[in-house]
């Protein structure tokens, strides 16, 4: 009897393994910066495009956290990852350099910046005046939602402890709305998000230096020929109708994918300095 049990569980394990990882297929992972259904809708055109172009299945996998995504990429469970610049720096810090496939080009530029803003009726004109004020950040792991603005504040002589209070509100739109609601004196978000809400009554008081956009990385030890093929495919997305549609689906305004090198992220790296590598637990404790 017991031998059948082993056989049964053996089969079950094989089946699950097969489900988790398509044989001969690839897995593209995205971080959970939006609801899963929304991410599914945004990235399905890309996976379908890649599946058709490669002749092998490319599956989408939505990571539970940014950390999980980095860990899975390191273990080789996922093959490709769509990753934010701050997470990329963390990835490099923890696991060394990975093969880069390309970075996004949004409205013709592969760089983006962040904005620190106040409400139009606010008296505040400079970062220094934010001492003893309430501040709204976005997500912990985002460059422009939290990490870079915190650095800018620190350079202006306002540490987190000098603020009357601050909150990590999750999404960057949430930070913008929080400032509009009047309960936070200032907030930080990508310039793109700031522009969306500017008309409702927001004013910029500081802008971060531009840093490189989101990027696609591959896991180490991926077949070099396949890697080269993938790179070519990503860079050629802008040349076909289906490719452009897949890019537009990821985020409106994406015009293409351009070559990326680790050095493109040096500006962000120097901007964040040691701050980047502080343990997350520290942030949560604050």
């Amino acid at each position, binding site marked *: 009897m017991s031998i059948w049990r082993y056989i049964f569980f053996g089969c079950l394990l094989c089946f699950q393994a097969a489900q988790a990882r398509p044989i001969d297929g690839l897995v593209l992972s995205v971080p959970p910066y939006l609801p899963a259904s929304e991410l599914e809708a945004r990235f399905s055109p890309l996976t379908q495009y890649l599946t058709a172009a490669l002749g092998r299945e490319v599956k989408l996998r939505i990571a539970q956290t940014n950390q999980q995504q980095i860990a899975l990429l390191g273990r080789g469970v996922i093959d490709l990852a769509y990753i934010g610049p701050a997470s990329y720096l963390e990835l490099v810090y923890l696991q060394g350099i990975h093969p880069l496939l390309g970075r996004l080009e949004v409205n013709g530029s592969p760089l983006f910046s962040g904005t620190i803003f106040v*409400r139009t*009726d606010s008296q505040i004109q400079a970062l220094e005046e934010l001492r003893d004020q309430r501040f709204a950040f976005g997500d912990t792991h985002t460059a422009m939602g939290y990490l870079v603005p915190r650095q800018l504040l620190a350079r202006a002589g306002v540490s987190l402890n000098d603020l009357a209070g601050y*909150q990590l*509100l*999750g*999404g960057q*739109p*949430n930070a913008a*709305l*929080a400032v*509009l*609601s*009047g*309960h936070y004196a200032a907030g930080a978000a990508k310039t793109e998000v700031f522009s969306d809400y500017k008309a*409702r*009554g927001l004013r910029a008081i500081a802008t971060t230096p531009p840093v490189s956009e989101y990027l696609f990385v591959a896991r180490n030890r991926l077949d070099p020929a396949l890697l080269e093929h993938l790179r070519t495919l990503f860079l050629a997305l802008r040349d076909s109708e289906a490719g452009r549609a897949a890019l537009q689906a990821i985020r409106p305004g994406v015009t293409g994918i351009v070559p990326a090198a680790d050095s493109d992220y040096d500006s962000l790296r120097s901007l964040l300095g040691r701050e980047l590598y502080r343990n997350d637990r520290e942030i949560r404790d604050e």
Partner: protein
Amino acid sequence: MSKLLQFRQRQLYWATLAALFVLIVIAGALLINRDYRELRASQQEIAESELSFLTEMVSHSLANEQYRLAELLIERWGEKHPDTIYLSLETPDGYVLGHYSSATPGRDRYLVEQRIEYGYDRFALIKLETDLHASTVATRRFALEIAVGSAVLLLLFGQMLLLLDRRRQQRVLDIWAHQDGLTGIANRRRFERVLEVEWRRARRNQSSIALIMADLDAFKDYNDKLGHLAGDDCLRKVATALSEQVSRPADLVARYGGEEFAVILPDTDLQSAQHVAEQMRLAVARLEIAHPKARVGVNVTISLGVAAMVPMGEQPPNVLIESADRVLYLAKQAGGDRFVSTAPDVRRSVLV
């Protein structure tokens, strides 16, 4: 006169009916209008209760600093409720935290505003501009259509009544124009018209047409003695008696003048006409109307002149009338209560 009265009564009847119809239509329109108002009020209540549900959710999101969620709630709510024209979530000083506006302009909009309190000294306002449900609008349109439709129908109905009344009036006038008011038989005008027609027909067919002229004997004395009312009564009785002696549709008994009657008998030869005349004389005799100054016997009697001919050439119908008149005169001369006929040859009169 009685017919005129009847005519007026009928008009009154139709007018009342039309007024009733108008009243019913107005009452119906009012009822539908009331329904519409009730529907609108209940819809407003639903909108307000739905809004308070939304307010609850938004307030919860705001209290948890989920501003983006509140914004999404507002947008989704607007998309899910097709009646929403404009929905916004605002701070008390007018900063917009979320808004939705419909692409279609509203038809019958109204504004609901609710204040959200989501923490100590924290407020926001929800402003909702909503439209009427399509069904409510349809109800109102239905009421309007009924009102307009009824008005049109009423107009058509009125026109039809007018037309019918005019035709009826015409018919009454026609009757008055061709009927003798006293006796109810054809009058002189009708007699002349029919004679003209029958005369021409007889000439065309070369058939014989007969005419009997009749006159009450000593009727002036009867009138003088018994009064005009009795005279009228006598005339009516005689007219009825004479009418009963002809049965064919084409035959016509008419009152020719005071106490003179004329009978047109188309397609009738002299002999048949003589027979009819005799029947008429007997019929009047059978009436036994007492005549105090009668020259023959004691009752009212009648003299008749009978003429018949086949119209020749361009002879006018007066020829026939003259012949019948002439022999009637002969009958009078002979003492009355008899008929005299022209000879089969028109030029000779025969005393019977």
